[in-house]
């Protein structure tokens, strides 16, 4: 406190110019380019791109793990991986793909697009947003560091007790799992609060609930799912950590614990998580299809309500993962029925997409191909999912490759295909150049072939009785042929991913050589983010648009003739803003998000190995919190030198600017309090 520059707020009311004195206790970063511009940025677009880059990196990691699994299973009796190592590899493959690939990739899209789609300049709490990313990244690295520190977690991504106990998993892998997922969970919770507040509070004038783009709607639903489901898994992971590191026996049957508690808590989170992975992608597809069908989305309100219904019902079906756990016929019946019902809103979505395409002037761009691929593949995965809803059938399918086939069809065929489509669609928005369509179509078709060759046969293998999570099988079981097919398919997927990376590299190189930004609104698109030029300028909007339609940008470009056919009324160049506004105040960069998140893994190492590690971690967290609280989110020194004719006349305005920015800290602190609490509880 002593370091704070003494200043009474009364000085500001006179309307005098603000004296350039730093309000924080430490100097704050100023760089907006280069590596520092990325590390300390709080710009939602940069944070979004960082999320995307990190998730692609982990996608390659998880992909290598998948190839290891498939190589091990290619032929009977393979000895590439030992049983123990195989356990670690498939566990980390699951954890990586779910928590470190799909979720951050969704966060990438949401961070980048949602503020643009609602007409905001940034998210509600920009520094918390940066904190979410760094917290996720450090948590993810912490989780993966287990490979070097005695072996990864080996109990499957759901880590059922008693396998997760010390008796059956004596390495530190599952400790890394518990603490790593708590850290990434903090990131997602903070991000959920942030994005919910942003969507509710920072919409442009006229952007009512019934005019919000579908992607924003679906990501809002998903943020609520995260908000309400993450605390439950946090508690479960906490109990697991207490069991393993502090000697309690919550999940130790021998000492009165109950493994069913873990299963319930895990799946109360785990089932909404499934919708967390797929709903935003439904939003992405609902954005892409109308653009390339040149028709409005069919049944927009139904799409919203079915999304909300999926979100609601997602909390009422968790126990269908537990039909084989012996929880009693009454529970099984109830959850079986609920699960059958949840197929209804999902079906509504698929039918509405189909109706959107029907009769449209389809343009088969890569983005559209991926979207339509999603409809087909997700429908297959959804239908095999309905077969699990019937408890007697599910008893047969539980823990077989049929389940593996099902969830890869919904997560890979649903989430991942849609997100590749989204990348092709929004790449020009984020980077100012398109990815090549030719290579993109190769990517799509090879990926589709590889995907179906890998996961299609798993339905057969599962029904033949091949168990999940076995590290090998013998030659006389009849699994040889389809396993080999699946392995070949997995390598075909790897080829398609290589094509994607090549595509990104080639286009980046060309853009570097000839840095001409692509035309604005290259797809003749519909929603509000396309009103900004490509790539999006740092201040997003020159003027905040006033919204009057669902597909605002489309309606600014096209009117209707008597027959209802669209007629151009303005060119794209007229509609799209120039992006040359100056003097827009933006949230200033800050050191504290990255410093605060760097402390958390250290505390994690401290809990696992020796509390000595936790001391620097704790100091980092405390210093970062102190600096954070003392620092206004918008630096009053930066960007204050442009003309503000109104400021001199309106003294209160300047005061609000200065003080209001600081207002965020105290509430931010409450959010951070959760961080401290989560880390501090086992000690205290």
């Amino acid at each position: 406190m002593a370091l704070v520059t003494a200043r009474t707020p009364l000085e500001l009311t006179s309307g005098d110019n603000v004296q350039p004195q730093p309000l924080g206790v430490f100097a704050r970063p100023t760089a907006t380019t280069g590596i520092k511009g990325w590390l300390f940025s709080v710009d939602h677009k940069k944070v979004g791109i960082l999320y995307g880059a990190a998730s692609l990196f982990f996608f390659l990691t998880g992909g290598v793990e998948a190839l290891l699994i498939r190589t091990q299973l290619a032929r009977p009796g393979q000895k590439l991986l030992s049983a123990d190592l195989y356990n670690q590899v498939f566990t980390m493959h699951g954890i990586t793909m779910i928590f470190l690939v799909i979720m951050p990739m969704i966060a990438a899209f949401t961070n980048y697009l949602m503020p643009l789609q609602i007409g905001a300049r940034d998210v509600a709490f920009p520094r918390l947003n940066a904190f979410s990313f760094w917290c996720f990244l450090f948590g993810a690295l912490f989780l993966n560091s287990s490979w070097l520190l005695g072996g990864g977690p080996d109990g499957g991504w759901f880590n059922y007790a008693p396998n997760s106990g010390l008796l059956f998993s004596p390495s530190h892998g599952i400790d890394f799992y518990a603490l790593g997922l708590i850290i990434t969970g903090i990131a997602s919770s903070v991000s959920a609060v942030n994005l919910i507040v942003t969507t509710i509070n920072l919409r442009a004038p006229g952007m009512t609930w019934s005019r919000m783009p579908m992607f924003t709607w679906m990501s809002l639903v998903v943020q609520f799912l995260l908000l309400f489901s993450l605390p439950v898994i946090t508690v479960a992971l906490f109990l697991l950590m207490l069991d393993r590191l502090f000697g309690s026996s919550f999940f130790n049957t021998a000492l009165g614990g109950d493994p069913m508690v873990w299963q319930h808590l895990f799946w109360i989170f785990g089932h909404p998580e499934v919708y967390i992975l797929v709903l935003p992608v439904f939003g992405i597809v609902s954005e892409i299809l109308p653009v390339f069908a040149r028709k409005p989305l069919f049944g927009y309100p139904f799409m919203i309500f079915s999304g909300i219904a999926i979100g609601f019902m997602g909390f009422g079906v968790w126990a269908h993962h537990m039909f084989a756990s012996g929880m009693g016929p009454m529970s099984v019946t109830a959850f079986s029925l609920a699960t059958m019902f949840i197929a209804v809103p999902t079906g509504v979505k698929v039918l509405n997409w189909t109706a959107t395409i029907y009769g449209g002037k389809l343009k088969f761009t890569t983005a559209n191909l991926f979207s339509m691929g999603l409809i087909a593949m997700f429908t297959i995965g959804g239908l095999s999912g309905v077969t699990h809803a019937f408890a007697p059938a599910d008893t047969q399918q539980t823990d077989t490759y049929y389940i593996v086939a099902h969830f890869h069809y919904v997560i890979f065929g649903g989430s991942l295909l849609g997100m590749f489509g989204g990348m092709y669609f929004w790449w020009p928005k984020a980077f100012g150049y398109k990815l090549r369509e030719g290579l993109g179509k190769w990517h799509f078709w090879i990926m589709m072939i590889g995907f179906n060759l890998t996961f299609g046969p798993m339905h057969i293998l599962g029904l033949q009785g091949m168990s999940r999570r076995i590290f090998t099988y013998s030659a006389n079981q009849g699994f040889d042929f389809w396993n080999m097919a699946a392995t070949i398919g997995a390598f075909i997927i790897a080829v398609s991913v290589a094509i994607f990376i090549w595509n990104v590299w080639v286009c980046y190189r060309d853009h570097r050589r000839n840095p001409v930004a692509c035309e604005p609104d290259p797809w003749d698109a519909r929603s509000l983010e396309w009103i900004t030029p490509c790539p999006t300028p740092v201040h997003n909007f020159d003027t905040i648009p006033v919204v009057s339609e669902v597909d605002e940008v489309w309606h600014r470009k096209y009117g209707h003739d008597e027959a209802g056919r669209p007629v151009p009324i303005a060119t794209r160049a007229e509609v799209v803003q120039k992006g040359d506004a100056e003097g827009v105040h933006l949230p200033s960069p800050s050191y504290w998000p990255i410093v605060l998140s760097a402390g958390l893994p250290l505390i994690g190492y401290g809990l696992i190995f020796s509390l000595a590690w936790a001391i620097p971690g704790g100091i980092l967290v405390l210093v970062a919190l102190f600096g954070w609280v003392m620092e206004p989110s918008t630096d009053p020194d930066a960007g204050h030198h442009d003309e503000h004719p109104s400021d001199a006349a309106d003294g209160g305005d300047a005061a609000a600017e200065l003080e209001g920015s600081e207002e965020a800290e105290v509430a931010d602190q409450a959010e951070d309090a959760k961080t401290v609490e989560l880390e501090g509880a086992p000690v205290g």
Partner: protein
Amino acid sequence: MADTADTALTANVGAFDEPFHQIDFAHEGVAAGHQTSTGISNEKLGMWTFLGSECLLFGALISTYLLYKNRPGTITNVAGEVVGQVHDRISEHFDILFTSASSFVLLASSLTMVFAVVAAQRNDAPRLRLWLGTTAGLGAVFIGGQVYEFTAFVREGFGFTTNVSTSAFFTLTGFHGVHVTIGILMLLVLLALSLKGRLPFTKSESVEIIGLYWHFVDVVWIVIFTIVYLIK
């Protein structure tokens, strides 16, 4: 949901219909919240969202305790053979009268928190400091009581690892205690900011927001006190 928000939006169109440099980002975050789509400030909405999430956190902890509170009994090994007995459960050793006193203290702190918020809204800095200090002090008394209670249990032979009922009990009440401690820290930060003159009237809402957190912690204790301590 739609009606209220939409009305607020229409009302706000005027406010947004200005040259861009008057509605830039720094203004959008102002404490008054007059320029957000709903009229609620970002910070307050964020706090309520967070509290909604906390309901699930404590829900999970309370249900874990309820499932485990009667679990002690025979201890079996992996093969199912009985290897020991747990003599009794922690709930039979609650000192209800002592905990009642703690509950009254926490309730009183909620009342003083209300006074602090009122003082902040009335721009009454001395009273604001008085009530912030009192609230933090009452919170500290509560925490002191909890520490005493825990040590008493440990002295009676109920440690964290004694059996699942004690583990669940200590985890639940420990989580709540950590929440109270964080609340005390935030109150002290507010107090320090006020003493430094950095908590002006325009920022009185931050007192209210920390107050929301404080009341929530109190509300959680109301539930814990009834469900854990009083219902046998």
